[in-house]
């Protein structure tokens, strides 16, 4: 596709998509969203720029290859198991810590977030892997 409008709009749309990907990721524990949807949004940002420009330069510019995303996602998933095992709780039971943030109040962080980040990265990786495989014309 070679559309000037799409090419000019892409940087803005891309930033918005990535921003909302993180919003979806972070609010996902108790609200609609989460790692899977966040990951799809983030992958969509890259798919979008490959539509606007060409697939090849976008693929080359990626600092982390799709396989790398999947691997990092899997490592995060593994990390999310470890707090519950270290505290000898039931497997994958949530471990929560409260971090005081001064005037901002308190931040409640738990091991489910690690799981969500793992899913987030794995979904980005797998989606890009599919996309680049299917658009690869030899």
């Amino acid at each position, binding site marked *: 596709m070679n559309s000037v409008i799409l090419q000019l709009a892409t940087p803005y749309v891309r930033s918005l998509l990535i921003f909302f990907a993180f919003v979806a990721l972070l609010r996902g524990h108790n609200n609609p969203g989460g790692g899977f949807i966040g990951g799809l949004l983030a992958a969509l940002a890259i798919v979008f720029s490959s539509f606007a420009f060409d697939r090849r330069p976008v693929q080359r510019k990626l600092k982390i290859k799709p396989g790398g995303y*999947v691997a990092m996602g899997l490592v995060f998933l593994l990390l999310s*198991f470890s707090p519950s095992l270290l505290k000898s709780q*039931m497997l994958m039971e949530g471990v929560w810590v409260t971090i005081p943030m001064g005037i901002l109040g308190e931040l409640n962080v738990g091991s489910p977030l690690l799981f969500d980040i793992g899913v987030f990265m794995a979904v980005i990786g797998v989606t890009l892997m599919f996309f680049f495989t299917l658009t690869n014309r030899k």
Partner: protein
Amino acid sequence: MATVALPILFPFLLILVFVVIKSSRAAQIVGVLGSASLLAISLFLFIQVNEQGILTLNVGGWEAPMGITLVVDHLSVIMLIVTSFIVFAISIYAIGFMVGNHKTNKFYIFFFALIMGVNGAFTTGDVFNLYVWFEVILISSFVLIVIGDSKEQLEGGIKYMALNLIGSLLFLAGLGLLYGETGTLNMAHLAQILRTSEHSLLINSSTTLFFIAFGIKAAVFPLFFWLPASYHTPNITVTALFAGLLTKVGVYALMRFFTLFFIQDQVFWLNVLLVVAGFTMVVGGMAASAHYDIRRILSYHIISQIGYMIMGLAIFTPLAIAGAIFFMIHNMVAKTNTFLIAGMINKLKGTFYLKDIGGLIKQSPLLAVLFIIPAFALAGVPPLSGFFAKFILFKAGAESEHYAIVAVAVFTAMLTLYSMVKIWNEAFLKESPTKEFSAKGVLLKIPNKLSFIHFLPSIILGLGTVFLGLFAQSVYQFIAEAANQLIDPEIYINTVLNINMQ
């Protein structure tokens, strides 16, 4: 019982190992060792189930109807053992056959991702979790199909993906309806609610959706088209793996759902299953006898055999369900084995096309013996496993006066025998055609030699088939226990929901 999660967690750890490993030789060794450990894990679970009955694990510490429960009962543990047995054989096979331009590490990553999905589907006690495992299976099997990057594989892969995605979508829709009606997704809790509920209208719509979804996965008539369209394209190692596992996950899900909670309009649904079973058998068998590519014959033949399993479920007596489970085990082992042999024939002759093959009985007598075992087992010759599987099913059918389906099954057994004899005559007995070009005008490749490592997996599976036949009595006792649990799921429900039985 954290051991219940091991069949899922262990393949997951292996995937991480394969991401790190660079050398393909190391990957092959880890693959064999890993699947051997998986076999050990499932045997350990088998011992535990034998001692303590149904094992459960509430993941994340959320109690039963709220969180995701992993449940290992008799049927699950049987499926886990057979799965890891096949996976063990195929991991050895991959050393000899997953060579060339294939990316070894990528293959192993998705190989074990597939195993993780299959094991997850067999152990989960939650309907939505089952959907997630189906997706894991679907994604990893798609990658495995297209791993060789050829145009043919991409075409097969897309057909496979498209038809299975429709199945997943219907699954999700049915799941949503079920959740809307009952407010729960835990299988035991669903069973508890639906066994006392009067609202059969909404349940029936959701049953229909689930039936089509699992029917697509299990490749029953008339939803099987994805299977022959895709199974002949990937590397034969991948096809053998699919033949052993994929459709059986669908059959397992059908068995679980139609015994546990879709019992509102049971007479109607069992009749539907019965008709579907009959058509699946005959259509699969007839299509198999029309083809000359070994992989296509065997692919259609998978479909025909699925019919027998559905037949056992549809007759719905303890004996028939036991027969269906026995048939499933026997079929998983023998069917995978025939695909392994097809791969070896291809390696010796450079083609899968029967017309261009011949004289194998002189060229490799060992291969002929190895082919005879699963072929006779599939045809139902005593004392191999297939004889007992079919005998139990026919007996159950005759006892419950389902004479028509038994007649169809006997007729299909003839078709099976015909297909196996065709492969035997064309590939083994006939003189080898002395020509350089195949009937399709392709230059025949220079034949390779087979070494022991190529034969070993087929020997292992062949011994499995013989074992199933010789020790049919003890195997049957455990299976009968599983069938009783399915027919009368009181214990399952009570164990999962932690209800004290007085």
